[in-house]
């Protein structure tokens, strides 16, 4: 997250992010080995993020992963980032077969497992919910420290007025670009006229977008007959989202699973966890197929490690 602070109000820029990764990755690798008390001989396989995501940063890490795999003569495993979140969530919470709400700055999907695939039942048709929140934070010049989403959440707790915002659910899918455009247009005017406070806008935005997510998750749970829901991804840290999801689950007699920021936010351990599952199931990524895929769909992976 170092890059997030340094980039100020721009968000993650691929070039700068890639440069950051290249600058720290080898020292980080060595530090991880040292802290774990391991050597290359103790490593079973090398897992890296194959996608989805920004191309330059993905390549920066894939370079090292491939080179390390060749130098150490270890199997290589290209992992889907979304599946990394799911497998980490399942591991940490113990959820067996949940309907997954995956919400982050780059992805918004409702996923359920069926016949060796993580099927996407619903998703955003434009921007991710985290992206919507982050860009809204820029409109109000909300600090990035520690993260815009966290600061929106804290401000929302002090909101008192619900401002009506565009609510866009299209079947199983959601759309956030409209609500973002709307709030970008009206925010300054409403604040200037005293119609509402920044806290009211934060509160209203959260209530609206989270309600949309709860709706499509519940619809997927009803379709699948699922009694478990799991929230993963950075936006999953939001306690208000967890609270709204919990209410929905209770009404359905279902159980909600969620993690804290250690496991919600992107982390290397989740890639390792998914890679480990893949390795044990016999997956191997040949060098010829070890590129990165910016648009790597969750349902492209054959999940052979589950029944």
């Amino acid at each position, binding site marked *: 997250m170092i890059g997030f602070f340094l980039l100020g109000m721009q968000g993650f820029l691929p070039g700068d992010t890639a440069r950051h990764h*290249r600058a720290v990755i*080898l020292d980080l*690798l060595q530090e991880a080995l040292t802290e774990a008390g391991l050597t290359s001989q103790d490593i079973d396989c090398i897992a890296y993020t194959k996608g989805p995501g920004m191309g*330059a940063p993905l390549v*920066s890490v894939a*370079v090292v992963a491939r*080179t*390390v795999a060749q*130098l150490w003569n270890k199997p290589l495993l290209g992992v889907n980032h979304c599946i990394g979140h799911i497998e980490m969530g399942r591991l940490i919470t113990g959820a067996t077969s949940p309907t997954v709400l995956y919400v982050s700055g780059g992805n918004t999907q409702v996923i359920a497992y069926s016949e060796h695939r993580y099927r996407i039942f619903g998703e955003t048709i434009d921007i991710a919910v985290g992206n919507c929140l982050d860009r809204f934070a820029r409109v109000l010049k909300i600090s990035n420290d520690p993260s815009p989403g966290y600061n929106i959440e804290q401000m929302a707790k002090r909101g008192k007025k619900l401002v009506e915002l565009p609510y866009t659910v299209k079947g199983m899918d959601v759309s956030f670009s409209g609500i973002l455009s709307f709030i970008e247009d009206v925010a300054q005017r409403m604040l200037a006229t005293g119609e509402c406070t920044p806290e009211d806008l934060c509160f209203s935005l959260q209530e609206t977008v989270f309600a949309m997510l709860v709706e499509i998750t519940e619809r997927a749970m009803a379709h699948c007959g699922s009694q478990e829901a799991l929230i993963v991804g950075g936006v999953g840290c939001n306690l208000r989202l967890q609270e709204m999801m919990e209410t929905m689950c209770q009404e359905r007699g279902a159980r909600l699973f969620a993690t804290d920021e250690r496991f919600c936010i992107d982390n290397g351990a989740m890639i390792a966890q998914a890679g480990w599952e893949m390795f044990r199931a016999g997956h191997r990524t040949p*060098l010829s197929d070890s590129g990165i895929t910016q648009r790597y769909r969750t349902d492209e992976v054959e999940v052979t490690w589950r029944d």
Partner: protein
Amino acid sequence: MQAPGDGADGADGADGAQILDDGAGGATGSAGSSSGPGNPGGRDGTATSGTVAGEAPQVEGASPAPRQGGEASASASASGEASEKQVLEFALTVPFLCYVDAELTYQYLTSSAECYHEAVHTELTVIGSDLFIRLTAEDPVLLQISTASLLNQLSMVVQTMQHLVPAIFSRPRPGKGG
């Protein structure tokens, strides 16, 4: 030994040959020229992976001027005599100290096709312990971007090899390249 310096990413563009700063050794190359080493006729098929058994690769800053024995020439685009569809070229020779190092780097770069725009033609060849790299394209911007991407990856491969096999790289190397 210092690894090649960081280059530009994405649309920032870079003069690929000049991204390489003082580093581990020598590399010849030129940017923007209309001719280069071409295909020296070396092996460029798939090879088995290997571990680093030799010494450190040597990559030094590439001069924009043609080197002794090099086939690169000044950019034809600057001459004013270019045809309408001029093919621009970036060529680089990276002398590694053993075949295994060159082969490992070759295998990595050949599997990174997604990083090069489809309009940029990439040729990679290993002859002995030298890795020949040649990128050609009609669009100078695309060529510049692909060159920067390739050099970034080359830099990371070399840095990774240096980092993980320090004992080998700490041995004094005979003068080679440059």
